[in-house]
């Protein structure tokens, strides 16, 4: 069978599946669990400067085409999260890319600096959480200038590679991608969830405690594939394609659109925690069938 190894900013992954931030990866042990189930790399839950409880329940609900979540970035704060990240790095056996967020640009820098004592190979900068507007205002990823300023500050505070995580709800994602790459991003993670709402008609109440949430899963896939396709045209850095991937064929779509690796989150619900090994295996079979002998050769095929 063909080799499904891939390389992200010089970092070798045994397969292109990456645990997406915020799904399962709350602790070092949880990250290890996803790696044991086949993930080629791990992005733990996003970490901020101080402890946050996140929103009350419900934080996740389903609709016909996918899931809607507003967990509200719970985390124990960067200082006490270090031991979790360290345990993830030690025990996962695959690369671990910590994800960071902040309420201000300076906070991003502060968290990046603290995380960097662990020497991660790459840091994912979450510029795009749609569910914390009440605390943090509009996500940085919605504005090219704001996004690039965050990346610059993170860059000043770390020697790790940086992947900028973007959101889909912008008029021109190419412009944002160009701006963050110019500011120093070494890769782009696309995409975060798409704002949405689910209302319970019997009580006339939005189901999520935060009312609004972010759409993930099946419904997000064509949106994500399109974003990856657009970003691939605009910049020349590796892309982690995230959104609705749960089968080998979904992964192939992402890669053909231009992704070097794929993030998987909600797919864990659809296929189980071993979705990573399932997707890798299915991708391998599909590549055999279609005659691609490497991820590199399949990457961007839809552009030709």
């Amino acid at each position, binding site marked *: 069978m063909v080799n499904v190894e891939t390389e992200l900013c010089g970092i070798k992954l045994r397969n292109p599946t990456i645990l997406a931030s915020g799904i399962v990866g709350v602790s070092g042990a949880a990250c290890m669990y996803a790696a044991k189930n086949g993930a080629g790399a791990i992005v733990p839950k996003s970490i901020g400067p101080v402890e946050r409880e996140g929103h*009350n329940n419900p934080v996740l609900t389903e609709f016909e085409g996918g899931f809607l979540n507003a967990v509200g970035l719970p985390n124990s704060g960067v200082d006490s999260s270090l031991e979790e990240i360290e345990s993830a790095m030690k025990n996962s056996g695959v690369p671990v890319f910590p994800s960071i967020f902040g309420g201000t640009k300076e906070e991003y820098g502060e968290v990046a600096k603290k995380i960097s004592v662990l020497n991660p190979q790459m840091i994912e900068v979450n510029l795009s959480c749609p569910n914390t507007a009440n605390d943090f205002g509009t996500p940085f990823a919605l504005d090219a200038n704001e996004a690039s300023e965050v990346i610059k500050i993170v860059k000043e505070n770390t020697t790790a590679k940086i992947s900028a995580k973007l959101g889909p709800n912008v008029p021109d994602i190419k412009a944002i991608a160009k701006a963050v790459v110019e500011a120093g991003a070494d890769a782009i993670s696309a995409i975060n969830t798409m704002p949405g709402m689910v209302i319970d008609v019997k009580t006339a109440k939005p189901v999520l405690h935060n009312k609004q949430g972010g759409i993930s899963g099946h419904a997000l896939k064509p949106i994500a594939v399109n974003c990856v396709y657009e970003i691939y045209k605009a910049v020349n850095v590796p892309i982690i394609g995230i959104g609705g991937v749960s089968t080998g064929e979904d992964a192939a779509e992402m890669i053909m659109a231009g992704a070097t690796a794929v993030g998987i989150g909600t797919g864990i619900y659809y296929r189980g925690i071993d979705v990573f090994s399932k997707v890798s295996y299915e991708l391998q079979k599909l590549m055999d069938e279609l005659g691609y002998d490497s991820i590199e050769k399949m990457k961007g095929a839809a552009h030709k």
Partner: protein
Amino acid sequence: MEKPVIVEIEKTIDETDGIKTIFIKHSIEAKPGQFVMVWIPGLDEKPFAISYLEKEKFGITVAAVGEFSDNLSKMKEGDKVGLRGPYGTNYCLEGNNIVMVGGGYGAASLVLLAEQALDKNMNIKFILGARDKNKLLYIERIKKLVGEENLIITTDDGSMGAKGFVTDALKELLSKEKVDKVFSCGPDKMMKSVTELCTENNVKGEISMERWMKCGFGLCGHCCVDPIGIRVCKEGPVIDFELANKITELGSYHRVKSSRKESLEVKK
């Protein structure tokens, strides 16, 4: 669909000191050990074990210990809540001679299991423990089920039954009788001791764990336990001793809402 359905409370009964059972008019297909997520719109949503199960209704038993459980306890006939589930793994009955070890509202899922075990003509011993006699749950229900002679009560202060812990009673039982399987639900430390005791005695069994839950269906990762990372809502809450022995945080710490670790020592 992982979305709450709005259901109506049929009636509530006072079980004991600050503990109530709420019956919900809704038929669910569940097995003993599984839990449901109960939503009070605008407030929060939390997991509760199923304690009564009939064709057209089921019950949960709620100890009022904080804002959510206080509010839920105050609900009355006709009030509405949201419901998701059932979720998680269930107990697995095996052998002829089984022992239930319940502490506090942990007895909830075990009585339901005892009902099933009776249908299979198993011999059941029920060890029920609490801090004092006012916290003992379902005494009459258990007596009716397994017979007074098979109910062993312990209280920390000796106000009813033997003074001491459920594990003291279990130890004595294991030394006297052939036991095929032990089922336990209650405070973390209690289940840790039960697991250790039974492992030493080569008796198999299962415990039902409790950890902070957000989604209840395996996505958020909040209920993952150290060091193996399994999700208590999905690979649990019911786990066998073999797995329990691998969970080093059992009886030692849990994670609070933010995910920060907190020692169980601070909790009474």
